[in-house]
């Protein structure tokens, strides 16, 4: 009986993955509402749970692919694998309208480039300070400081090791959580109460879930403005991370 159930779960790995991730999301949103009154967004908690499960699986199996090393959860690996990941990330660009991007004007464009490049430089510098001083590791962790999407996309493109990829995701996650939790406290100091500043905010910080969570807590009307620039930020980061930024890092450290 038990073997029969497990067999079905293993055979239909992707479906098991969907169900397990859905359950993780459910628990996370419940935790978010119950213990943080929504201040810490459910998606951030879900990612932390994901990293936590990967840690436990890593300890139990001794493998390098987190829960994907547990046969029953191999489908989670497929769901978070390159193909579906690229597919879903690209889809988020659908919400971006060129006409509205133009309205953000010069400050919106400056914020996008400044946000991506500054985060990358800070992340890469910290990586180097901690001994990850080869170009691939520096660029991957730097890209992780851009967002937890740009990190693994960059790392996969330039062939970073799994532990460096995990570090870059962790850096992006710290950023996302900090933006989400911290911004409402400092919103007044940067006059974050109008669409224009919301767009610059989204362009500078970039982490879509962090920006959306923060703006939802400040004023829900500002969410689409920040979401738009932060979505574009991810695209710009994915574009610049494995190309110009990686090449610049390589030129710098050899």
């Amino acid at each position, binding site marked *: 009986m038990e073997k029969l159930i497990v067999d079905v779960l293993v055979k239909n790995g992707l479906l098991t993955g969907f169900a397990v991730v859905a359950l993780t999301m459910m628990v996370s949103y419940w935790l978010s509402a119950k213990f943080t009154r929504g201040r810490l967004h459910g998606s951030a908690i879900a990612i932390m749970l994901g990293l936590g499960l*990967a840690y436990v699986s890593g300890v139990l199996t001794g493998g390098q692919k987190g829960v994907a090393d547990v046969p029953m959860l191999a489908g989670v690996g497929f769901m978070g694998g390159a193909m579906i990941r690229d*597919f*879903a990330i690209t889809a988020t660009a659908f919400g971006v309208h060129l006409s509205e991007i133009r309205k953000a004007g010069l400050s919106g464009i400056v914020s996008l480039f400044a946000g991506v490049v500054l985060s990358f430089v800070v992340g890469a510098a910290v990586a180097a300070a901690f001994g990850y001083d080869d170009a691939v590791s520096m660029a991957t962790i730097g890209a992780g400081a851009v967002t937890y999407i740009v990190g693994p996309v960059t790392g996969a493109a330039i062939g970073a090791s*799994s532990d460096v990829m995990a570090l870059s995701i962790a850096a992006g996650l710290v950023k996302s959580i900090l933006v989400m939790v911290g*911004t409402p406290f400092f919103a007044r100091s940067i006059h974050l109460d109008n669409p224009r*500043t919301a767009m610059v905010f989204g362009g500078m910080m970039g982490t879509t879930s962090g920006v959306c969570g923060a703006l939802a807590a400040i004023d829900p009307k500002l969410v689409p403005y920040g979401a738009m620039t932060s979505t574009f930020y991810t*695209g710009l980061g994915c574009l610049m991370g494995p190309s110009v930024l990686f090449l610049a890092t390589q030129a710098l450290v050899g």
Partner: protein
Amino acid sequence: MTIYGTGLLAACVLAGLIVGDFLGAAIGVKANVGGVGFAMLLLIFSSEYLRKHNLLPQPTKEGVQFWSAIYIPVVVAMAAQQNVVAALKGGPAAVLAGVLAVVVCFALIPLVERIGKEDASSFRTQVVTE
């Protein structure tokens, strides 16, 4: 039909990844260079074009929007298959990189916002003097 939206998305991703692979080969990086970014730009431009020509009915949109909505769960699945055990050995690096990136960028928001405004006002005075 919903599949039209999903098909459009798939075509954009494939085209973007092909461009990324070509670019990678061209500059000698043994991988896909910015493919997802190109795919996003392609999707932005093509959906803008289709919207303008009234070729994006609701079901087609839903074929893209479903995948857009599924992106956080996919990121969760991605996080769940990382080598966290190995990453924890370098722990403080990740925390410090994240925190410093936020602090530096957040502090510069008022400055960047002003750059745009100054430009707009100088443009206005220019128009007035003309």
